[in-house]
């Protein structure tokens, strides 16, 4: 379990580093020293965040922590969106927006674990990745594809850790297995994204600054920025309302769930499903279902088959195709009313005859069904 938690923290750190570095490299002159500094500051922030989480674990009621979490959810996303809007509207000060977002990311890393709001770290990384993508070039590829890959890894580790939290005595699966499963799912989207971004690169930062500036500073784009801010405000307000609503619902007593100590007592090889087992139930049921399929098809073909009709009367009405229908009716009668379970051969035959009868019935449009006389 500790391996999972450590890997989860590492994923958050990598995500933050990737986002901060790509955004920084996209909008400022490359500097290895600066990237190393960012890595150091981010690691320090996360280490302090872990210490803070440990220190706070013994303090504060759950309600206080929930309230703090609500405040964090309401406060953190807004400046990030504002910074993004600034970067969109005025690329020449995008570097400053990146710095602001980096500071926010540091704060999110510091408080994320203590308040259980790691998702804000992901949100900050996403905004940094978007800002990096505005500039284009390799940082955009790394920022966006890296965000998708590392956040997916974080999701899988977080999921495994949370599931196992209720069963502390169950051994945690190895981290590599968790990551292997996640990578199978993420491989196609991440590769496609990386290739797409690489093949269709956006204009480099300088070009954006020159050619996009007039567009982005046009009145309609300013309106877009205003709208973006308004939407963000509305979204934050909505989130706060939902939070309050959920808090109210929490007053009801939750169901009492007993997480049982579980261990796998045995692993057995499954016997192949035999035909007699009838995958969808006993063979009697399969014959009846085959007959019901025929009935549904006959109704679609325009036959009016009332509920009171006997199978013999239904056979008289439908008539064609005669032979398979007669066999199907007999098999159905045996299965439905006979004392013995139908044999495998009878099941096969009923299903084959049902298919044959259905193939012989032409489906009519709904409007034409009432007009069809019995054959």
């Amino acid at each position, binding site marked *: 379990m500790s391996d999972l938690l450590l890997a989860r923290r590492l994923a958050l750190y990598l995500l933050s580093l990737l986002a901060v570095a790509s955004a920084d490299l996209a909008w400022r002159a490359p500097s290895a020293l600066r990237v190393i500094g960012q890595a150091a500051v981010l690691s320090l922030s996360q280490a302090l965040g872990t210490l803070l989480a440990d220190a706070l674990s013994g303090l504060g009621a759950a309600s206080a922590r929930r309230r703090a979490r609500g405040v964090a959810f309401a406060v953190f996303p807004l400046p990030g969106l504002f910074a993004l809007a600034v970067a969109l509207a005025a690329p020449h000060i995008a570097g400053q927006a990146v710095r602001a977002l980096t500071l926010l990311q540091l704060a999110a890393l510091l408080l994320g674990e203590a308040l259980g709001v790691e998702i804000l770290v992901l949100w900050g990384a996403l905004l940094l990745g978007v800002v990096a993508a505005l500039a284009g070039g390799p940082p955009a590829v790394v920022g966006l594809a890296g965000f998708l890959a590392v956040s997916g890894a974080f999701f899988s580790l977080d999921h495994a850790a949370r599931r196992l939290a209720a069963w502390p005595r169950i051994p945690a*699966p190895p981290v590599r297995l968790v990551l292997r499963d996640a990578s199978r*799912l993420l491989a196609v989207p991440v590769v496609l994204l990386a290739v797409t971004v690489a093949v269709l690169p956006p204009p480099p930062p300088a070009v954006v600054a020159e050619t996009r500036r007039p567009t982005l500073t046009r009145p309609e784009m300013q309106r877009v920025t205003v709208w973006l801010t308004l939407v963000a405000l509305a979204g934050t307000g909505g989130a706060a309302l939902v939070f309050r609503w959920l808090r109210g619902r929490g007053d009801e007593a939750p169901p009492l769930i007993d997480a049982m100590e579980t261990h796998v007592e045995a692993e057995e090889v499954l016997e192949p499903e035999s035909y007699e087992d009838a995958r969808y139930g006993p063979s009697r049921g399969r014959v009846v279902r085959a007959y019901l399929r025929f009935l549904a098809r006959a109704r679609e073909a325009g036959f009016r088959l009332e509920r009171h009709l006997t199978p013999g009367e239904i056979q008289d009405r439908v008539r064609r195709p005669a032979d398979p229908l007669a066999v199907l009716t007999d098999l159905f009668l045996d299965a439905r009313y006979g004392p013995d379970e139908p044999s495998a051969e009878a099941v096969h035959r009923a299903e084959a005859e049902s298919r044959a009868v259905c193939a012989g019935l032409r489906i009519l449009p709904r409007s034409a069904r009432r007009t069809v006389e019995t054959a």
Partner: protein
Amino acid sequence: MDSGVFHRALLLVASGLCLSVGLLAGIPALVAFALAALLVVGIAWNTARRRLSGLRVSRRAAGSAFEDEEVRVEVALENRGRAPVSLVEVGDAFGAALADRKALLDPGPLPPGRRHRLAYRTVCSRLWGAYLVGPLTVSVSDPLGLFTPRRVLPDVRPFDLFPRVHPVGGLERLGSRSSFVAADPTLARAGQSALYFGVRDFRAGDEVRRVHWPATARSSAPMVKQFEQDLSPYFTLFLDLTRRHRAGTGQKSTLEYVVRTAASLLASAARRGDTVQLFGEGRRALLVPPGRGDLHLALALDQLIRVRQDGAHDVLDLALREQAAVPPGSTAALLSASLFLDDGRLSETLGSWQARRIRPVLVAVDQDSFLPIDVRSRPRGDVQARTEELRSLCHAHGALLAVLGAEHDLELELMRSDWLESA
């Protein structure tokens, strides 16, 4: 709330934001990112559902238990899908336990075509009654934990929780004789056993195969063989389910005392090897035919936990009506929820049993010591006087008497060795 919901929401919000910004600002990388994020969500949704569709769960558990007994429930989890699954959560509702649901986690990985056997133990903490086990639920997530679909399997089975039973003090001395075995197998009277008793004159209706030919030849008149009558210990219990004898609530109620006492009497008799039968008459007739062994005891207890005090007829009416079902030489117990039974009919019942060498036992629950429901409690002086009357009546008919009141700890009282003579 499940963290997967937040993560999913983040990916969807991210794709919405990137798509709108990408389209507005003409940045294809952001559009591609939005589509890739949506693709991840879609693949995760599909993976979770596919994984769940391949899972089968079944349960194996006992159908009954006694209060406070620990029950083992086996759960078989099968993976009939094409990919291994991990962290599968199986939920089960066990009505007789306190928790609403039991949750099990198979850490996995469970390879395709394999079955994992899991088990859990739970204590039947609730009070006796008929409960349900199930439904089973199974849930599994995609590798990222974005979606956790759950399937409910309608595997719901009844589970009978029987009252705790205690060896009833004094019962072992009833209906048995001094012998090497716990009970005499035969009675030295003419009957249908395999033990030879003697010969007598042929009477109309006697079977021809019973004719004793040597004796017939000697006496020149048809003679038949006689066999001893089978006698196995027999215990009959008549239960008072009269509505007007209801009193008290919860664990301090006449119903509770009647059912728990009846369960202990039946269990003690059955475990001693007696043939036991049970009669009661609520709104629904209660009849457990004579039988022996643990399975028969389970049947009797199964019927017992379903009784209600909603009958209209007195237990004495029932005992008189069914007295033919009580074999001579056996033990019969009247379990009344009130001390105030009709003296005349009680005397008649006990007298007729005494005449047939049936050992009578009267267990009376003092209704007036419980919280009254629809009838006001009688003064304690009247109750004391009535207890004395019952004692003298039972003494006159050689019956054993026990009186139970709300002030008694039922379990301790039942286990007292002199309980049946204590009144």
